[in-house]
């Protein structure tokens, strides 16, 4: 599969926080979830990829082209949704659009209006009057009206109610079904990604901890419960996290198969993405 974005050895020192050798790639046709706790470096990574934060070293290539050398051309193919929106709140939706639209060489007004109608957004209202959910939909309308190939979203679901979040997931799947080449989507709410992501990338303290297909993660990891008797020096090695009580143990393994072979009488349950994320972060 083609790589639509390849990040190599990205470093950025921001004093109190730094990105340390961040490398990953996005595959064509995939929705990639970028997970991590608050402050793990998700927003900084995204901003660095987009050139809003200047990198100290490393390379960023979209569709095989260097971002630094082809910034304007490449940004024409990217749709952006930021958590905070970064909108001029005092402008109306129509005014804000009239600023953003001319930036893109392939902006299509009819597509934008279709989204505005579909989302029931009031063109002549000020952005400051919009609810969080409407604001996110407006950001998506702006991001998808110029035939973007790749959609980059920073925490689009934070602060949204479950209904709007599931609507957003539908929008993403529609985008991918209608010729979108990829979605890169950061979130600390992993249940959203559980439903739609194809690949998951986990970042913690400015480092990439994990980059794997979602289904492979769910297949290889397991929540194991059982009596403490089952634990010995060898089997302990199989666990990322292990919690022992007077009554038994509970732990997350990244080699479910080995646990099944080496440990008898244990209960193996399917973990959630959140279980897996916490397992790696706490380690």
């Amino acid at each position: 599969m083609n790589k639509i974005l390849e990040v190599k050895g990205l470093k950025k020192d921001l004093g109190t926080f730094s990105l340390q050798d961040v490398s990953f790639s996005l595959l064509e046709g995939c929705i990639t979830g970028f997970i991590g706790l608050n402050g793990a470096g998700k927003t900084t990574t995204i901003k660095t990829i987009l050139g809003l934060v200047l990198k100290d070293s490393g390379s960023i290539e979209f569709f095989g082209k260097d971002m630094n050398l082809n910034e304007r051309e490449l940004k024409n193919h990217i749709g952006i949704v930021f958590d905070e929106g970064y909108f001029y709140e005092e402008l109306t939706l129509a005014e804000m659009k009239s600023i953003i639209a001319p930036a893109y060489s392939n902006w299509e007004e009819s597509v934008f209006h279709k989204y505005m109608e579909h989302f029931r957004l009031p063109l002549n209202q000020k952005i400051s009057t919009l609810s969080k959910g409407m604001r996110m939909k407006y950001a998506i309308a702006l991001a998808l009206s110029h035939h973007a190939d790749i959609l980059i979203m920073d925490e689009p679901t934070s602060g949204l109610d479950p209904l709007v979040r599931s609507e957003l997931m539908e929008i993403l799947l529609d985008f991918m079904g209608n010729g979108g080449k990829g979605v890169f989507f950061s979130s600390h709410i992993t249940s959203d990604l559980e439903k739609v992501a194809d690949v998951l990338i986990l970042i913690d303290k400015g480092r990439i901890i994990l980059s794997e297909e979602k289904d492979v993660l769910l297949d290889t990891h397991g929540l194991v419960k059982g009596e403490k008797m089952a634990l010995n020096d060898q089997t302990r090695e199989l666990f990322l996290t292990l919690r022992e009580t007077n009554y038994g143990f509970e732990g997350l393994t990244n080699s479910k198969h080995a646990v099944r072979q080496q440990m008898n009488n244990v209960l193996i349950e399917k973990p959630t993405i959140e279980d897996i994320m916490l397992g790696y972060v706490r380690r």
Partner: protein
Amino acid sequence: MKIIISNTSDSPIYQQIKEQIKDAILYGELKEGELLPSIRALANDLRVSVLTTRRVYDELESEGFITTKAGKGSFVAKENLELLLESRRHMVEVKLTEAWNAACSLGISKEELISMMGLLFEEGENE
């Protein structure tokens, strides 16, 4: 065609999907030449990754069950009788192995098991 993914099953997600599509082809639920859903559509419906459905289709294709035409999609392959028979035979073997395993763990003897099989055949003839 029904596909049910079990969260408690030992076999990986792609394996489960693959086996169920294979079954659908073997039982004739999916007809020869029929268009299969796209990788993305199947992934969306099953809530699994496109990488998983892609792997399923890739393996089904390499095993000769489906063919993929670029830009058109994946189709159930022209029935390859030998392949199907072989596959069905294999399935019987698998099921029998399961039955044998269960029998062993319950201490059922070879004679008993064979007579159970005989009973099934008799019932089948009576119907």
